[in-house]
């Protein structure tokens, strides 16, 4: 691309626009069209796989093998038996996704509660109080956030084997907390910093101590950010795969949703359409949760990005 070929000094921009096929006009036209092409492309690319997921979950497997190219469902063939089979427990000729959902819900909720209980005071301390090692702590969190989880997986795997904690959900919860707390602290800290110090100082002058200020002033103000952080932790815990695979693979009754789907899709006995029903079941909660909190979450994660 060339340098800016600015029009002769003093010429009003209207003169440029009046020229029939100026570079400016051509480009405006092209990019105006390309913009809509791009929007359509991205919409298709992101939504089509999910549409395909839902579509395959309500089609009988014979129909899929017969007409693999169809993107429409024949209403007379529409079936929800796939969902029933996916959700039923193994003892009842199902695949046990309900158990997986239960396990994941327990793991994710526990992770959210504990991670928040740890991260809220931590974030407050980092944003408001000056103490020895405050800056080092932030660097430490960044490192943890960036460090490869597979490096971490080996010692934790060995440790849990030694403590015979493999197959229990507690080990998993601990790992998820450690993985999410640094980001949670970062998200919450950004928010705490937007609360005017004067508000808190007024409360201090009025006789509240620090903990009182946090509980009565800062926490109620930070509720949106706390919600966003909770959703973030929940999503990480719900979607995580590697540690679930390492810790729980021998115990089918403890499988989380991710592990369950991965293990079952490896076997040839389970029909694809049933597994698609399983995929829908594990994806829907997370996508709904995300849609309800999308604004909050995006802002929480990208705050600071717009400062350059």
């Amino acid at each position, binding site marked *: 691309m060339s340098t800016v070929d600015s029009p002769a000094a003093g010429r009003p921009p209207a003169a440029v626009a009046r020229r029939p096929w100026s*570079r400016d006009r051509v480009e405006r036209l092209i990019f105006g069209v390309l913009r809509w092409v791009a929007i359509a492309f991205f919409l298709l690319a*992101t939504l089509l*796989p999910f549409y395909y997921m839902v579509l395959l979950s309500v089609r009988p497997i014979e129909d899929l093998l017969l007409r693999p190219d169809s993107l429409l469902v024949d209403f007379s063939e529409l079936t929800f038996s796939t969902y029933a089979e996916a959700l039923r427990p193994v003892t009842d000729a199902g695949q046990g996704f309900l158990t997986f959902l239960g396990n994941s819900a327990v793991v994710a909720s526990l992770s959210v509660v504990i991670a928040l209980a740890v*991260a809220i005071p*931590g974030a407050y301390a980092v944003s408001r*109080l000056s*103490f020895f090692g405050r800056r080092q702590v932030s660097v430490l969190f960044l490192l943890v956030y960036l460090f490869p989880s597979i490096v971490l997986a*080996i010692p934790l795997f060995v440790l849990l084997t030694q403590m015979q904690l493999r197959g229990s959900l507690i080990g998993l919860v601990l790992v998820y907390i450690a993985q999410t707390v640094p980001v949670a602290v970062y998200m919450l800290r950004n928010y705490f910093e937007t609360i005017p110090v004067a508000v808190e100082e007024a409360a201090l002058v009025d006789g509240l101590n620090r903990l009182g200020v946090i509980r009565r002033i800062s926490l109620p103000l930070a509720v949106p950010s706390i919600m966003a952080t909770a959703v973030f932790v929940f999503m990480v815990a719900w*979607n995580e795969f590697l540690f679930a695979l390492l810790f729980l693979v021998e115990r089918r009754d403890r499988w989380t949703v991710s592990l369950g789907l991965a293990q079952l899709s490896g076997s040839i006995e389970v029909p694809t359409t049933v597994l698609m029903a399983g995929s829908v079941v594990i994806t829907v909660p997370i996508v709904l949760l995300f849609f309800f909190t*999308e604004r909050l979450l995006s802002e929480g994660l990208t705050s600071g990005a717009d400062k350059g």
Partner: protein
Amino acid sequence: MPTSDTGTTRRSGATTSGRRQPTMAQREARTGLMLISPTVVIILAIVLVPLAWSVLIAFQRIRLINVARTGLFENLTLANFATVLGSDALWDSLLTTLVYTAGSTLLAIFLGLVAALALRRPFFGRSFVRAAMLIPYVAPVVAVTFVWKILLNPEFGIVNSWGRQLFGWDDPVAFLTQASGEISLFGLDIPVPTALLTVIAFEGWRYFPFAFLFILARLQAVPATLEEAAVIDGATPSQRFRHILLPQLMPIIAVLVVLRTIWTFNEFDDIFLLTGGVAGTEVVSIRVYELLQVQRNVGAAAAQSVLMAAVLIILLGAYLWLLRRRGEETQ
């Protein structure tokens, strides 16, 4: 107590006798330490100590069978590194990892940039489109890899059945199990690493929302006056992008490159779930997993993972050094 020192000096410098009545700064420092300690303890216990231990394990002869009985400093050896470094597959997998990382990172950021530019100005339904574009990133990785596997399935996947009908492919393409294929272009048969490219495409699809989100946030913070001035000066859209927007976006793009490089380099789930590491997609993290779970050689797995972290640190160090040197040159 070191805390009280820094606390008081940083605050006002006016130190009163802190023994009976701690100053406000001292009390703050104490509260701060109290509040931060749970976080620090958890990170020490579950991240830092295991990391150090991982390095130790890398120097131990330790297998899954004797893992419960091996003491902390028993069976020290260098054999693990000899095993890992002596393997021919290591260099292949390192190269695969580098190609995979560079390709995925660039593709994801490029797509994110295009998407952010397309969605920059408001239009009807923009918030819906914006939210929809984030779904690949938030949906469970296991579910999306499964859908991709079925989409690309040679027997009943829709991509192959459409490819044959619309584009006249002769044979179905085994996107995820074929190490190399050929594309006929102008009568030339160009060999391509099919599975690796497919995995890179998946990474671009799954992670462009992340780049999109950050670039869009930055785009919307670019002062409108900058562009207005450029319009008055007669700059065309492409010139405005090249000379006004891109310089504004470069810092966030540089950050995204670092983040995505780190995460893709360590990525395990996506490749493991899509191809299982076959057909020329065996990246280093898959090798670590195989050493651990298939060969059950814990020591070698740890050695491999430590090496992987070392390579990553060197790469990032070089990148940051380059960035700084370029920053100094322009000043």
